């Protein structure tokens, strides 16, 4: 479970996040939706501890991401925006490297790496060096890498960016399977359809603030729009512009 409470983060003069609060439950898919520059990535970066919030609290399974950042990191699998692989290592070596860094027991690593390779269906190219992989292949390997330690929480920053139709579909299947496993899945996107197709909860963020937080149906109801895209635009209007 991921809880964010009144998060603030500025970069110099720019106020990227201004009081974001939401809760992402276990066994549910929560989508962070918002236009470019709304503060989605900044919020996620605070959650996976590469940024420190100026104000507010964020917890992973009740663990504070600032004060106990190592413990918090151990409980999340992260797919940051444009996650890169090591081109001279094979996909399998890339995943095993992370398994080692996650501190997994050495004798269990090979079996576990094979397990995620099978789960993500990347066996065909698992033993090739990742140099020259397609964006879809890279995303799958990066995802396998972030799931190798069986995290309870999965944070994905715009995971479908640059993926073709087939790759996007298999990514959605995977996200649904994570939900069935009872994981807490939090992902960001600026594509309305994608969020609508997947999420149990939608958090619409604009100008660093939560504009609306509800189920897809709830959002349709509250904005009075049947079309989610219309609803999205309407929800954005409610946010006060940055001074």
């Amino acid at each position, binding site marked *: 479970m991921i809880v964010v409470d009144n998060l603030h983060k500025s970069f110099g003069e720019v106020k990227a996040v201004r009081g974001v609060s939401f809760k992402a439950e276990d066994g549910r898919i929560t989508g962070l939706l918002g236009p470019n520059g709304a503060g989605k990535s900044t919020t996620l970066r605070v959650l996976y501890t590469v940024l420190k919030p100026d104000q507010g609290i964020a917890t992973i399974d009740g663990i504070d991401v600032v004060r106990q950042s190592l*413990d918090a990191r151990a409980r999340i699998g992260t797919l*940051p925006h444009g996650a*890169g692989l090591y*081109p001279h290592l094979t996909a399998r070596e890339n995943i095993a490297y992370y398994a080692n860094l996650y501190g997994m027991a050495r004798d269990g690593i090979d079996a576990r790496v094979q397990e995620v390779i099978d789960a993500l269906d990347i066996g065909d190219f698992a033993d090739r060096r990742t140099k020259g992989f397609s964006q879809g292949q890279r995303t799958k390997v990066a995802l396998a890498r*972030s799931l190798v330690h069986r995290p309870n929480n999965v944070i994905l920053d715009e995971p479908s960016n640059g993926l073709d139709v087939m790759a996007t579909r298999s990514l959605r299947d995977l996200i649904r399977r994570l939900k069935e496993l009872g994981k807490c899945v939090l992902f960001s996107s600026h594509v309305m359809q994608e969020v609508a197709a997947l999420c149990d909860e939608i958090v619409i963020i604009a100008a660093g603030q939560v504009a609306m937080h509800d189920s897809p149906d709830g959002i349709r109801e509250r904005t009075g729009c049947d079309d989610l895209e219309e609803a999205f635009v309407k929800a954005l209007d409610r946010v006060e512009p940055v001074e």
Partner: protein
Amino acid sequence: MKTIRTVFGKEVRDNFRDRRTLISALLMGPLFGPILFAFVINLSLKQSLPDASQPLELPVIGREHAPNLVAFLESNNIVVVDGPESRDAAIAGVSRGDHDVVLVIPPDFGEDLAKLVPATIEVITDQANTQAERETRRARRALNAYNQELAGMRLVVRGVSPVIMRPLNIDEVDVSTPSGRSAILLGMMSYFFIFAILTGGMNLAIDATAGERERGSLEPLLCLPVKRDNLIFGKIFAACFFMAISLALSLTSFYVTLKFVPLQDLGMTPNFGIDVVPVAFLLLAPFALVGASLMTLVASFTKSFKEAQTWVSVVLLAPTMPILVVSILMVRPSTALMFIPSLSQHLLLVDLIKNEPLNPLHIAVSVIGTLAIGAILTWICARLYRREGLLG
């Protein structure tokens, strides 16, 4: 500790597969130095060897006016040939570079000698032409010897011992050993080794921050539940490992090169045998930590791999500064100087090559001081790795 080992192992494997690292670590450093060195030595051998066994061909105008002088020159292994037809032609020839040096003997040379008036003899040469310097020096030395001989004979005729002309007997005692003489030239070797150390770890040092960032692999790496200090330590140690390989190869290739360079012809026998190679390695190796952490530090401020390369190349030149200053000022090794990385390695290596006893205190200060500075720089790198601005 496990994290450091994991990162170290991955970096070593990764870079052994990276052609860029292999070229700079295993080819550039180890080959660049020895080849340049052999080239410079061979060039200076050609330049400066005064090959007295080869007869010098000396054009002389008016040789018929001084048959005794010509005979003296020929007995000194100088072949006198006819010069250009006139003095003006000789001057033009020398300035064009057709001749290195031309002697002009005026018609009244013999008459002046007989009258005990100083007889003029002209040596036409171009002092700006360093090529001609050797020939000119040899001709002038022969003329001076003839001058001395004539003066001595005139004194003997008057019943005076020629020894009276030599109130001083200047005796120079040269204490430099053949190994010592070589140190001047071989001093530049130490920079090649430091250069080899730095190029060996350059790619890894850049990759630790700028490279990882550009590839997009830095952010997921920082999300891992490991101490960031340990990530950077593993990376810096991996860089040191490649630097050590580069240094070892460089020392070995120098050892081989020196076997083929006729240094003894220059009066040099550097103390660079197979037993010196490991000692030199141990003296120089501590510099790897300073180099690795300094390059990592510089690279962490840059935005891209390309930008990092530009700035890190500046680091390649930095170690020359203290070496250059000390070489110009001719400073003797002292304990205080041993605190300066690159300089202390240079001074110790020069002593080693000169085959002079190494001061154990100097070695200790150099090794410990260099490692301490390396540790401080590594610590600063770790601090920077904790900043969130690192993500750029």
